């Protein structure tokens, strides 16, 4: 049976230092939810509060309607997968998987049946009598997952489970995890600092920084309409340019230093006033204009041909460097030191207030704002 998780005004302190000051969050039943952020942002701390391994200094944690703040970790019915797998090295694969069932005092035949079922589900059936040290990293990962899932937990918690695997296996296990989660349909909280991994695997993502949630949304929302400057730089690559938002007769346009101007149709009404802004333009949102048309005047420094795409590194007259990604063309690659003009796909770029705290465009979908009233 799966649950939804509600966290209200959570506080975490270690001695004098406050890691999380006031955090609220709701995770839906059966959802694959990811906590994403740079190291030290408090994501693992929050996960371990849910698991019961960290004390909770304030706020309320609920599984459905049951408050779990003081519930013993052994009784929360949680499946947990650790960064280092935490496989018991002195127990065989089968004994590892059966460990949780034995603690629940299930009858022996049921333990065997359930263990076998999950060994098969995770495709580690053939290794069941091996000791863990004889397994590869990917196989250990599967044991850890089987062990966490076999107890039919209400919640599955995963703390950077793929960070110890090599790149190829990581991609492979991503799909394995996603598939098994879909099949079992269990509420899953996943912690990672790898934004690509988070995008690939999650239903929704909460981006965290310094113990504060910056944005909660679907991967597409985070990438295309990040709630603030931090999210736009943390998810994917981007170029930041200072510019002025000029509003005249109700029409808004961006004025870049050097003279290039761009009409903006989708500025939110309450933000339609002249102000300094920061414009976030992803490398693929530039369009290299022909000849000397209107656009940002730049000089090509270097280029990298990667097959599907070609990356150009250019600089503006101000000296600021920009990265551009273009689908590779059959024509010659633009030679270094050429002058090119850049226009941008105005519907795709994002514009933030000068302090970077708010995206002033329409279409930002952020569940963070909806949590407070739960």
């Amino acid at each position, binding site marked *: 049976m799966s649950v939804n998780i509600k966290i209200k005004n959570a506080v975490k302190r270690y001695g004098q230092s406050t890691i999380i000051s006031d955090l609220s969050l709701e995770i839906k039943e059966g959802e694959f939810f990811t906590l994403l952020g740079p190291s030290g942002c408090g994501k693992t701390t929050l996960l371990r509060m849910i*698991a019961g391994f960290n004390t909770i200094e304030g706020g309320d944690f609920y599984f459905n309607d049951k408050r779990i703040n003081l519930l013993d970790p*052994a009784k*929360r019915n949680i499946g*947990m997968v650790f960064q*280092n797998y935490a496989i*018991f090295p002195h127990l065989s694969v089968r004994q590892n998987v059966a460990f949780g069932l034995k603690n629940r005092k299930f009858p022996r035949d049921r333990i065997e049946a359930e263990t076998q079922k999950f060994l098969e589900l995770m495709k580690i059936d053939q290794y069941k009598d091996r000791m863990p040290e004889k397994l590869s990293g990917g196989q250990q990962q599967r044991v850890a997952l089987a062990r966490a899932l076999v107890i039919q937990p209400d919640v599955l918690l995963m703390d950077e489970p793929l960070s110890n695997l090599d790149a190829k296996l990581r991609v492979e296990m991503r799909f394995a995890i996603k598939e098994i989660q879909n099949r079992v349909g269990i509420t899953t909280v996943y912690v990672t600092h790898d934004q690509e991994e988070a995008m690939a695997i999650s239903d929704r993502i909460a981006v965290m920084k310094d113990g504060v949630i910056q944005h909660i949304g679907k991967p597409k929302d985070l990438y295309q309409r990040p709630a603030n400057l931090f999210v736009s730089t943390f998810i994917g690559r981007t170029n930041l340019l200072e510019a002025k938002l000029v509003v005249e007769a109700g029409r808004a346009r961006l004025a870049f230093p050097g003279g290039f101007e761009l009409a903006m149709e989708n500025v939110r009404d309450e933000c339609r006033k002249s102000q300094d802004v920061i414009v976030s333009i992803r490398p693929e949102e530039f369009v290299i204009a022909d000849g000397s048309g209107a656009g940002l005047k730049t000089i090509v420094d270097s280029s990298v041909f990667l097959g599907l795409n070609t990356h150009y590194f250019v600089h503006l007259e101000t000296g600021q460097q920009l990265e551009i990604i273009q689908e590779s063309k059959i024509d010659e690659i633009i030679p270094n030191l050429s002058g090119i003009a850049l226009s941008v796909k105005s519907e795709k770029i994002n514009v933030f207030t000068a302090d970077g705290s708010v995206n002033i465009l329409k279409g930002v979908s952020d569940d963070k704002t909806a949590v407070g009233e739960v």
Partner: protein
Amino acid sequence: MARRKMFDIWSVLYVAIFAAYAIFLLYPMYSILRNSVIGEDGRLTLQWFVKFFSAKYYSQTLIHSFNVTIWTTILTLIIGVPLAYFYNMYEIKGKAFIQVLIILCSMSAPFIGAYAWIQLLGRMGVVTVFIRNLTGLTIPNIYGFNGILLVLTLQLFPLVFLYVSGALKNIDNSLLEASDNLGCTGVKRFFKVVVPLCMPTILAASLLVFMRAFADFGTPLLIGEGYRVFPVEIYTQFLGETGTDYSFAAAISVIAILITAAFFMVQRALSKRFAFTMNALHPIERKPAKGMFKVLIHFYTYFVVGLAFLPQLYIVYQSFQNTSGKLFKEGYSFSSYTTSIKRMSDAIPNTFIIGGIALVAVVLIAIVIAYLVVRRSNVVTTAIDTMSMLPYIIPGSVVGIALVMAFNKKPLVLTGTVAIMVIALCIRRLPYTIRSSVAILQQIPITIEEAAISLGASKMKTFFRITVPMMSNGIISGAIISWVTIITELSTAIILYNSKTITLTLAIYTFVTRGNYGYAAALATVLTALTIVSLMVFMKFSKSKEITF
């Protein structure tokens, strides 16, 4: 609910361990300190210290001790570091056997080496007599400084060898290759790269050798003759034939502790400067040596190890010789064994009873303290941790004297009991066992325990079913080393034992002092056999095969 209960169990353990240390370590240390500064009239006085430093007769023991200790440390490094280097860098024939011999050398009681060397090189020693008969020359005197130095060096260089071997195993081969690549090879590489990389370990080994050499008193007592050193002086002041002087013995003990403490601090400060961590992805592989160099390193290795093991071999030989009274005579038999075991019928059972109880206590206490220190660190556990390390810097004879001073009068009279022997052994051995248990536990990620808890196991169950089994390999191999050091312990036990609590090592010592060399040899051989069996068990259990003292 469950958490509440667990909290109580651990709290009881905190208090119990803390109290035990207060009673059996702090109180005896206080007794010794108190005795050292209280005069016969009950007033505070420094007269005992003044007496020590003003009379050359006493104060020169200090200079003697420093002479012995510093030269021993230097010589063990000169012998042990190159030996470890050759052993780990090059193919040496019979290397497994050599290692076993070196470990055995390190594990025998030093005084046994001393008396064996007297048998070989003493005034009537076999070698001395042989050379005199052959050439008419008398070889240099083995008694005094030279003898102590010889015995202690051969006894303690194995520690340097084992420590440095461990460090060399952690050096990544690519570091040596990089050095070669940059033009630093051979002897230059040894001094510029290998030695600096091993520096933290060399310092740790030096400290250990220093402490052992400084505190050892069996060797100087037997072979030192007129060359009086510090620990012997403590012993003679405390138990000597010239009448006992508790206060003076206490004062000398305090001086001893201050000296070892100072060296401990210096070593700590030095190692901090050299501290770095290494992890060998590609450990050094032994290469075959070529030509003259190959002959030289083989000769060096065999010579050093042979010399160090010679006394033990000779003792085994002697144990089968027939004796008549104190003299050896023609023919071989087991009579030394039967007689010595009959005469000291308690010694073997006592060794197992006292050693066994002490071992179990040491292991259990060490596991609990390690768990408290690593997993439940707080002010109390830090205090326990610090206290438990104190005996590391206290010479064994001082521990013995302190216990006698504390527990030879009411309310708690323990002198002459098995209990006081066990307590002494626990106090002396715990610092090492706690260190190794802490190291083992630190290598077990806490997430493994959390995994067990999240799978529904209680904290107690997690401790016994997950934590302890995961530690078990390390604990068992550590326990075996503890066992060997416990059964060969002399300096504390000699102050505390009586005829009822005599152990094998003490029995050997008694026979040696009485001149019953045949019997001593027989029991020493039994002790060696016991050590070999323990070592074989160790090799079976220990994964790393690394011995740490």
